[in-house]
């Protein structure tokens, strides 16, 4: 999510780079779904500790059950976008939800495109 993070940073705080050379800066995400995914990721990061601790209380055989039920309610009360399950590993360049290779964070079509142009480090056409 390096690209997404950079984009988010750009949208949030437009830093004036000291160098005068005009660099191509992307100021928009590919589409709204990608934006929403980014929001979810941010929220999940914020609430990650809380969720972990409440879940530790819930998934327990030592503490009393009443306490665990209370913890269940508490975690349900958290915002929906804070759970990491809602995050979808989309393609970073095309926002494609399916066919995304985890290592490169790109969809299969983009991967093929870059690999054929020899822009993927260490990637070669298979032949055996």
């Amino acid at each position, binding site marked *: 999510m390096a690209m997404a993070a950079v984009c988010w940073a750009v949208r949030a705080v437009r830093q004036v780079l000291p160098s005068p050379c005009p660099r191509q800066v992307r100021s928009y995400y590919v589409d709204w779904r990608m934006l929403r995914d980014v929001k979810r990721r941010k929220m999940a990061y914020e609430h990650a500790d809380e969720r972990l601790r409440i879940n530790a209380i819930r998934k327990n055989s*030592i*503490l009393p059950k009443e306490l665990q039920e209370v913890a269940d309610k508490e975690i349900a009360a958290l915002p929906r976008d804070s759970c990491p399950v809602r995050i979808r590993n989309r393609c970073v360049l095309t926002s494609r939800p399916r066919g995304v290779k985890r290592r490169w964070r790109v969809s299969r079509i983009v991967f093929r495109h870059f690999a054929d142009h020899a822009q993927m480090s260490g990637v070669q056409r298979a032949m055996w």
Partner: protein
Amino acid sequence: KDKSAASKDSTHEGAAKRQEDGAETPKQQLLDIIGTMKVEVSYRKKLQQLKASESKKQAMKKLEGLGSEGSVPQGITEDTQRGKPLNPELVKAASAVASSLPHNKKQTESELLAQLRRHEETTDKQKKGGTINIRNVISEMTVKRQSPAQRGARISGRISLQLDEDGQRIRPERLSARSMESRRCCEILNIGFLFFVYRSLKVGKRLNIFTKASTEPEHALKTVSSPTIWDLEFAKEVAAVTAQPPRNGFEEMIQWTKEGILWEFPIDNEVGMEDDAEFHEHIFLEKHLEGFPREGPIRHFMELVICGLSKNPYLSVKQKVEHIEWFQKYFEEKKELLQEI
């Protein structure tokens, strides 16, 4: 050494021999000089000439010394051969060293004295400034030979430039021959130049361009306590104006590293992670469990939590302490519930 060995037999014979040697060697030296004058004056020959002239001077001094001190007793003639008396302390030291050594004592003593004499001669020469002539010669020689080497380099450079510019127009054969010749000349001249440079590094007048770095503590006690905002802004403006777009990939990567886009190589896995806490602070976390009841399921639960945290290498001590404190808060809030149970 032969002279000194001969002297130990009998001074009169030695004196006579020395006189004859003294008379012959200047003649020989003169002949050498004349012989060398005919051949092209090269650096080595000049040095030899100078050395010969100096030895001639020594021989002349010898003769003078002998002539004036012919009647002086034996013991002193050895030492005052060359007209410069050696330090009596040095003589004593030499004799002591010779006596300590197992082999021929007299021979070793005479050899040591000869060595000392040579050292004294060189020091006297340097004091009088006899070696400056060599230096001047060398410096002159280097100055003269610089220009042809440079010229050769320029010519070869021009030729190569022409090749690059025109390329196909000029016949490669013609230019290759010329360039080869010029290159050969350049090489020879460069070798000669290097030879001179090598010598001139050891010899030469001090130019006093560089001064020794002063070991005084720097006067960095300038009271620049806090750079004002205006100073910072000015610095930023200057940086923005002077910053040129990167000329090549390396400069681009440097810029990226400065901005933080690119990591610094070799990759340091602990960048940004400055955990100065000792291992015992990570592992022994029981002291943070003071706020909890001593018995009961909560204590049991918290002990498990602490066990897990002590095995966690990814969290800092602060984060672990925060973790435990959060649980403390949570259980305090739920105290009423717990008391009902």
